[in-house]
């Protein structure tokens, strides 16, 4: 059985307007379009209790709405105070126009 998870249609994700996605057994996810390329990270900020898709995308940086901390969308690395812990990012595959990630080993 495939561990591939379909999240949303790639065309629905516009640059600067990240989209919240949900998949069974996975934490809340965020899908981004950076200059035409699609990326996926966890959605819940590693610092405060806020969804990054409610935040502000500036190129390849996503700024959390809550405290203004930020992450590198492409790598998940924490970029600005008060975020210190990297956000999980997932390798993306576009399959038949859908944004897909592979369910990590051990995920419920």
């Amino acid at each position, binding site marked *: 059985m495939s561990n591939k998870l379909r999240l949303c249609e790639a065309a629905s994700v516009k640059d600067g307007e990240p989209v919240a996605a949900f998949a069974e057994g996975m934490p809340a996810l965020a899908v981004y379009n950076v200059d035409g390329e699609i990326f996926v990270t966890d959605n819940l900020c590693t610092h405060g209790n806020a969804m990054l898709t409610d935040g*502000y995308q500036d190129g390849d940086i996503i*700024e959390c*709405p*809550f405290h203004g901390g930020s992450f590198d969308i492409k790598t998940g690395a924490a970029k600005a*105070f*008060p975020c210190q812990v990297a956000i999980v990012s997932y390798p993306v595959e576009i399959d038949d126009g859908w944004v897909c990630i592979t369910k990590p080993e051990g995920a419920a």
Partner: protein
Amino acid sequence: MVTAQQTDNVKQDTPAAGCRVPYRVFTDRQYYEREQENIFKGECWSFVGLEAEVPQAGDFKSTFVGETPVILTRDSDGGVHVVVNRCAHRGALVCREMRGNRPSLECVYHQWAYDLKGNLIGVPFRRGLKGQGGMPGDFDMSQHNLRKLRAESVGGLVFASFSETVESCRDFLGPIVVEQIERIMCKPITILGDQRQRIFGNWKLYAENTRDPYHASLLHLFHNTFGLYRSTQTGKALMDANKRHSLLYSIAASNDDAADKQAYGDSRSFDTEFKLQDMSLLKGRQEFADNVTLVILTVYPNLVLQQIQNTLAVRQTVTYGPDEFELVWTHFGYEDDDAEMQAIRLKQANLIGPAGLISMEDGEAVEIVQNAIVGEARATSYIAMGGGQADDADHLVTEGAIIGFWDNYREMVGFDLEPT
């Protein structure tokens, strides 16, 4: 109607030696407000803490300059900083704890966050939520830092100033004060603890008290009775060039009981027959090569650095209004104190602080003045012991340094405000 008798002690037609200070400077809120502006926020350096109180990166201490709450911090580069403890947003206290360690300072109200230098680094919902709300587009974080004071450390004592124009702290202190700070802060110290004392009197009465070697052998019976301090001892009362600060010191081994008996006669405060059942309180060590056993270094406007026997402490004045201030005593020893020395310092701490066998009388002296001058708009004190001038003295029966204080006060605040 004012009678001749009532005006008697404000007559200015006989300019005899001596300094007269109108009692209203201790009670009238106008003077208090002028002091906050012209002294504590003016051309002065105020003591805010010891470097040893914030040794690690992220350490902070909440304190005050005059009545203004400030935070002393240590940043990750090892520098010390002093910022006003007031959020740049809507004015809340950023730091509500007295001490602690944090990577940044965060206001609890809206979680605006600042780094340890006071720079604004985080504003929640700055860009709103899902595009709604948020700060205006031209909002510039760098324009909303905590108010930063100048901060300088001299011998591990940290001073702060609101003034951009005041001379360097070392120059403000002058060579006598710097030398005395360095004498006591001669090696790494270790903090023993704080004592805090609310005194219901005007802070300047304490500024007078600590510039006054004359009272010490008369008011403080314990001091005198057990020979820790007597006016017959070798000592000096010196000031810096500007006569803002005062150094009083004495050498306890410089007198003898027989001669003192003659000098004091049957004075209330002198009785060599008194004994302590446990004399261990008075058994200290000679730890300074100069044999000086008492140093009261009073630094304008809000600090005393003291050595009484083997007690070492700073006393910081925090003002709460014309008739209330707090005295914060921070006791310390040296890092290389052995266990016995530490025990000596802790035992001798009973001499000082709010209930100290010596120091308790100073708080009381301040309050009995405040209680007696209430509502007095015209009368003045009379300060003339030692000649009535702001002069140094190579003895301890002088009030010269008090006059030095008032000369500076008159210049910075003035005596002649209109009564409110």
